């Protein structure tokens, strides 16, 4: 089964995944009308900032077992086996935030949502774009990511690629060329700038 795989070293912090995710979870599905909707759609993926100003796309890992599922008081969190996705039932959710206390990744947010009863604040998190997948589309965040920090592939594929990457570094003649020397240079500068602040 294909899953969303995160490659954090490629995230440039552009936040396009957040915009696409929120748009994909709006009524209209179009950016320009989505921003006028009530409630305003919100992303389920959150680009956090690292210690040196780097970006990081933080999304639900759909853990198995899922700490949020075990912590949920009313049992509103369940697993959709077809898509191996942990889902929150907004009707059962009582907005107690026990799931926030349990999630080691901090990916759950609380707000009104078109999938929830009107005016009810509920827990919201990534749903693997099940709706889109059912129509043969790929998750919205993956679709828009231009730097391939988010990919949609089977674990086997992702792991094979990584294995090959590591294997190549072992080859005697392989010169290790940086994937993006300019990005590395930028990050080195940002790291220095941040470290100097502690002086």
């Amino acid at each position, binding site marked *: 089964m294909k899953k969303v795989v995160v490659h*954090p070293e490629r995230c440039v912090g552009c936040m396009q995944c957040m915009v696409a995710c929120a748009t994909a979870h709006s009524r209209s599905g179009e950016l320009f009308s989505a921003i006028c909707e009530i409630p305003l759609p919100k992303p389920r993926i959150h680009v*956090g900032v690292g210690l040196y100003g780097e970006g990081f796309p933080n999304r639900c890992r759909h853990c198995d077992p899922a700490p949020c599922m075990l*912590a949920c008081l009313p049992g509103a969190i369940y697993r959709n086996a077809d898509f191996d996705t942990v889902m929150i039932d907004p009707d*059962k959710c009582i907005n107690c*935030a026990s799931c926030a206390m349990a999630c*080691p990744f901090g990916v759950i947010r*609380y707000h009104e949502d078109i999938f929830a009863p009107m005016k009810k604040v509920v827990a919201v998190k990534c749903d693997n774009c099940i709706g889109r997948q059912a129509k043969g589309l790929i998750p919205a965040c993956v679709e828009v990511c231009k730097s391939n920090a988010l990919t949609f592939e089977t674990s086997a594929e992702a792991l094979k690629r990584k294995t090959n990457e590591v294997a190549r570094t072992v080859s005697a003649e392989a010169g290790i060329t940086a994937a993006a020397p300019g990005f590395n240079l930028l990050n080195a500068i940002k790291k220095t700038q941040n470290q100097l602040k502690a002086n």
Partner: protein
Amino acid sequence: MNYIIIGNGIAGIQAAETIRQMDSESGITMIGDETFSPYCRPMISLVLEGAIPPEKLAIRGEDFYEKLHIEPVLGNRVTNIDVADRQVIIDHRPKGGRKTCFSFDKLLIASGADARPIKAEGLNLKNIFYMRGRSDVLEMMETLAKAKSALVLGGGLVGFKAAYGMMKRGLEVTMLIKSGYPLSMQVDEPAGNLILKELVRHGLNVRVGAEVSSFEGDRHVTGAHLSDGSVIRCDMVVIGKGVLPSLSFVPRDRIKVDLGIMVDEHLETTSPGIYAAGDVAEYVDIARKTPWVNAIWPEAVNQGKLAGMNMAGRSVAYKGSLSRNVIRIFDMDVMTCGLFHPPDDSDHQVISEINPRKNLYRKLVFKNDTLVGMVMVNQIDQGGLFAALIQSETPIRIPKEAMLSPVFNYKQLL
């Protein structure tokens, strides 16, 4: 194999489900004093508040026992355990040849906790409640309809949630607390004061330091006399002075008991084959590093599951419990975890930051390089990171101050 589980709270339920998952043949008997289908105890305050109807409390169906081939013995409390003969004895209620004695090969004591009683005159008057279970709340709801003012004894979780619920129902509420701020076991002073301010802003009356000596009334309570001589008029009283593990039936000469029933890392008591889990159990607290009873829902879930696994033959170690709590109070959210009030020594380091413009407060307690406690007011969605760090005792290798920032997130730990 005969399994007996005393208690049908979430610890017992999780244990039963786990055992059944691993062992489809053996007999499982569950003995519990509540007859409702399994429900979520922490949610009863939402019923009091009017946020959910009582039906929504259920977390398993009416057919729970049937589906899992569990023999339910409900409406009964255990009176004692015969360890030598491997027998559990219950209160005898003559109802057509009911069993009073049950044999076990493996026993799980998940009997939970009862409200701690207080000493005062007039406790037998009507409309004085402890709020521990679904039936307590259902009774309170009947009284609520006609009550105008309520008195809450205790600023702990139960008292607090009762007060909050009744305030939302429009009653005038007075809370009597011993310490200077509510939830003193759950939060530190700065957060406690913020909570107090928020409650007072919404109309709560708070009295500090006073205790009730007696209640007065005809058949229903009409007032309470305090130790300082004053009188508070009220038509409803809720007592929230903590809980005590329910273990009157446990033979202390055979099973070691402290505040709760002592267990090892397999949730097994000092008596082989007898386990304990949930509010009744006591094991090491990860942050405090001493045996402790953390009577909270997520621990009951965890302990029940692990006890079930160990009982069914799969040896799994339990790391220990961790106190934690999250609560929403009007416009304010508070989350706490672990040891947020450390001893004043050189091993422990406390850092905190208050941001008045954004209404945020965060406090982190470290022991050497591990996080052992935290308090957050607002922006709690990252709280699970801290709970996970405390739980796993991961050494912190990044500048600790970075963790105080509202933009702190998972990436910064990588």
